[in-house]
């Protein structure tokens, strides 16, 4: 198990860093922001899921990822609005965003996927 988790850690770290730095290279910032929602964690995880499990297992992860991405859309919307207000610190805004992500993702999971 530890070997598998270590491989995921390295692979995920490399792909996330690559997408993040790709985003840093682009201007304007709204375009660079597309890379903040790049499927970097998904590429590493689903690639390994394909190799270690069958296609049906990967398909289930893909369906849940769709739900997670809907939650990410709401989270980014909230973060963008709160940052534009200019009253809150970026870490506080990110915390509210993550809280909304958990609420939305697990809310949809509870009503639609469970």
């Amino acid at each position, binding site marked *: 198990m530890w070997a598998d988790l270590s491989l995921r850690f390295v692979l995920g770290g490399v792909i996330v860093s690559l997408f993040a730095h790709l985003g840093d290279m682009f201007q304007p910032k709204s375009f660079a922001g597309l890379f903040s929602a790049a499927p970097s964690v998904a590429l590493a995880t689903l690639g390994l899921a394909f190799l270690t499990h069958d296609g049906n297992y990967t398909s289930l992860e893909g369906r849940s*990822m769709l739900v997670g991405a809907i939650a990410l859309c709401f989270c980014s919307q909230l973060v963008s609005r709160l940052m534009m207000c200019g009253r809150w610190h970026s870490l506080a805004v990110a915390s509210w965003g993550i809280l909304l992500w958990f609420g939305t993702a697990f809310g949809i999971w509870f009503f639609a996927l469970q």
Partner: protein
Amino acid sequence: MKIHVSLTAFRQIRWNELGLRFLLGGVITASAGFIAMKFGPVIGGLFLAFPAILPASLTLVEKHEVQKKAEKGMRGARRGRQAAAADAAGAILGSCGMIMFGFIVWQFAPSYHLWIVLGSATLVWSTVALCLWMLRKHVNSFLQRFVN
């Protein structure tokens, strides 16, 4: 505003920022794998779209903009927040592309090969995100002309 690539961004990158992104990306990927092992792929899959690097991205974008303004002798706190807000606005469109990425994997993973599914899903993510960005840009410029 046109899209342009700036290689000066590489000069702004510091090793601690690179390390932080690597660490956060690695931790969330390993955690998503661990959660999938313990609770199954339905719960584990949710975390494939977890905003893991959101706090780091927001803080770094804001910090870089403030530094840029400080070099010119200006305060730049407001500009930093606007840049972070614009980055998050881009993430809204990126996440719409990610919804389509998940849809492609969900529908085609049982029948097609790994590289075909992940390759086409990534292509669809980038196409959807880029098209939505261009659409928003055109709608915004149209609305500005309409208002003026």
